[in-house]
């Protein structure tokens, strides 16, 4: 694959990268920590969570690192007070939207949202909680869907469509009424297209999708498996 080498700056340091790489890929390859939530290596990037925002010299706008392609001469800042502020804001709004009660969650201790909130030093939120009444879908023989924990990152949608090819999941409704739906909003257990492969469960960053029969703290996600599967798919 012939790709051009470009030179860019990350946090002031001069770095060579390949054309076509995203800001996130270049930054991570060079040991920079950029938090992500909706990004999962191997799946397409959507730039939905705005947690991976970075500063680009010459513009006031913050850019999502996962979807911004690196270009010759770009100067990126991956960590600053301003970025911290916006990242915290994004996570706080996610926490406010549904019922993220860690103490009663299967993913407690292994949750990307929880870890991120801790890393960003979020001890409380500044906004009123939405406290929506949301259902829990227990109809699937092996898995559970808990809308209360869902952050609509669409990782399950993408893994199902791109890796498994079943395309069971989609977002139904819009705005505050957006929900993950399987097939025609069928109960998950009745979704004819579902192959019960469990990839969506492993890709889910929170406790929204989990295996049945686990208690608090017990659901450990294997996201690296998804990345490996996706890499296998593209290498053939």
């Amino acid at each position, binding site marked *: 694959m012939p790709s051009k080498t470009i030179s860019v700056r990350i946090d002031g340091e001069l770095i060579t990268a390949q054309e076509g790489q995203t800001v996130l890929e270049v930054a991570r390859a060079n040991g920079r920590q950029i938090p992500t939530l909706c990004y999962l290596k191997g799946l397409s990037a959507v730039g939905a969570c705005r947690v991976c925002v970075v500063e680009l010299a010459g513009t006031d706008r913050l850019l999502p690192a996962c979807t911004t392609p690196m270009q010759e001469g770009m100067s990126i800042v991956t960590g600053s007070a301003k970025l911290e502020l916006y990242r915290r804001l994004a996570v706080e709004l996610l926490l406010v939207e549904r019922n993220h009660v860690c103490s009663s969650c299967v993913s407690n201790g292994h949750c990307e949202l929880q870890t991120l909130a801790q890393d960003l030093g979020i001890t409380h939120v500044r906004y009123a909680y939405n406290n929506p009444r949301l259902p829990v879908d227990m109809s699937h*023989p092996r898995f559970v869907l808990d809308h209360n924990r869902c952050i609509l990152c669409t990782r399950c949608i993408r893994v199902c469509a791109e890796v498994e090819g079943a*395309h069971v999941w*989609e977002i139904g409704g819009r705005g505050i009424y957006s929900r993950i739906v399987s097939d025609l909003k069928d109960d998950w257990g*009745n979704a004819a*297209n579902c192959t019960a492969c469990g990839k969506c469960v492993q890709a889910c960053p929170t406790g929204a999708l989990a295996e049945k029969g686990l208690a608090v703290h017990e659901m450990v996600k294997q996201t690296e498996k998804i990345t490996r599967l996706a890499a296998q798919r593209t290498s053939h």
Partner: protein
Amino acid sequence: MTSAAPATTHGAAQDTLDAHERLLIDQAIARHANRPGALLGVLEDVQAANAHKFLSMAALRYIAERTGVPPSTVYGATTFYSLFNLDPQGDNVICVCRGTACHTRGSRTLLEKLCFDLGMSEHESGETKETEKLAITTPDNRFTVRTVACFGQCALAPVVEVNHHILSHVNERTLQREVKALTQGRK
């Protein structure tokens, strides 16, 4: 994977399509065949052909089956656009604007009064309920009341749309008169 495969039959509760409805859908699909983004056109045609201007779950399932579009994508598109209805619509559709300009000029009381006059109890003002945007139909299927974010006619606020005609500077009395005319016109 020892557990039994999930049941694929959707029970008798699901309404089914008759041959004529299936034909209409097939025709709509044929009209939009081989066009990118055909789904929206198909959905629009199927809804327009329906007597109650809505898309039944059976229709959506059939569309997904015939077009090869995943059912979840069909459902996602249908629920994303407020143009599409998943429930049967009344003979008369009254649409109350709940945009900012109309709100400040009293569209909430208009809406409440309208719902009250038509005997709809569902709408309680104040708290946002966990329901979709308001769209209620009277049990006799004669009126559907829905809300919209803005008609873009803010200078005429408050605005109410009755069967696709926009009424401007509406007050309770004019709205009541309009509803009465519709009720009597049908008798």
